[in-house]
């Protein structure tokens, strides 16, 4: 019985913040939307000129700067839309099929 209830509700009403507010800013980070991906962007750091356009145009804030100054997708959040590959002025990004 208790198990059944837990499966349906994610939080007891007594623990709910006032007015059902969400108190942890940016908690969507817990949601790994990378699982939606069918294609994965692969960056060729050799071709990359570090312009950052892939980062600025990524709707999912997935393209992140590496220590080397080039960019890599954060596969936890990259949904594989392909905008980065389309917009990269150096054609440094290719999309590959995501296998399982």
């Amino acid at each position, binding site marked *: 019985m208790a198990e059944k209830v837990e499966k349906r509700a*994610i*939080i007891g009403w007594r623990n709910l913040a006032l007015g*059902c507010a*969400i108190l*942890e*800013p*940016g*908690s*969507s*980070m*817990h*949601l*790994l*939307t990378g699982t*939606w991906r069918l294609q994965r962007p692969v960056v060729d750091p050799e071709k990359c000129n570090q312009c950052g356009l892939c980062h*600025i*145009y*990524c*709707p*999912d*804030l*997935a393209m992140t700067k590496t220590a080397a100054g080039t960019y890599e997708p*954060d596969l*936890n*959040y990259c*949904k*594989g*839309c*392909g*905008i980065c*590959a*389309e*917009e990269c002025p150096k054609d440094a990004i290719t*999309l590959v099929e995501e296998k399982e």
Partner: protein
Amino acid sequence: MKIALESFEKFDPQHLPEFEPLAPGHRACQGCGEVLALRLAAKALGREMMVISATGCMEIISSAYPQTAWRVPWLHVAFENTAAVASGVEAALRIMKEKGKIARDDIPILAVAGDGGTADIGLQALSGALERGHNFIYLCLDNEAYMNTGIQRSSLTPYGAATTTSPPGKLSMGESHFKKDMPAIAVAHKIPYVATVNPAFYLDLMNKVKKASLIKGPAYIHAFSPCPTGWRHEGRYAVKIARLAVQTRVFPLYEVINGKYFLNRKISKPKPVREYLKLQRRFAHLTEEDIEIIQENVNNEYDRLLRLSQAVDLESKLTTSFQEYIDQLKLQMDEAYQKLRAEFQHT
């Protein structure tokens, strides 16, 4: 307002702010141009701001309990009242500061709604808020239909587009009306700042949002927002389509400052609208004639904007020459007066 604009410093493309008010993990569709426009607008304002959101895609994808994509204070109340809610927030901050209850009332308030939440059901609340002169930024994310409920047409759905309630059929070629001129409606309220933005032109977008935050009074920003799901285009083309909208003159980038139009990007060699239309399957059913009608409308609208912005140039010329004329007149009168005075003193 002049002072605010004079001190306005544009973003340095090499050093854009790192803080992202909208976090990853939101649930927008792959390649959503609307969330991209929202993210960039939020980024321009930074950590110290508040977002008031209408019901719609952006609300749903960013706030499904128990996770939020927002790192700044965010409030959603209903679909049609965003501008009214923002009015309340703004008025509250102002009076509480005046009464010494809080320290600051200069926190930018970004009210966000879709085309439906703005041009249709929310138009009255928006009109009221603009007329009352609240100090806030209203961002209309225009993806040209009610996407959240499944791609129904709105008054900002473009001519010819197929939606689930403007389907092409034996007696129909899709949406049969041209878009309502929403920025012009905002301008008619005589507010200090109106602008159009487009996520493909991200610096322009961010600069305009920042500018809007520095101006006292209401600012209305209309954002072109590609929606791969509703427009039926490949996700990867969202930015490309946004750019084409400007290059074909379908969505000109302009500002209206104190009622004066400034065309920010003159497109001297426009691409044919066909190039913009052909990437989106919502237009796939259109005939050559339909496309011709759309092209003509785009030409006319662009010409109208061009004339409006040229009127500003002309007016500034006129005012200078008129000023010169007045100055001369003053000089002559002054001389005549001195002469008279001298004569008078002699007698």
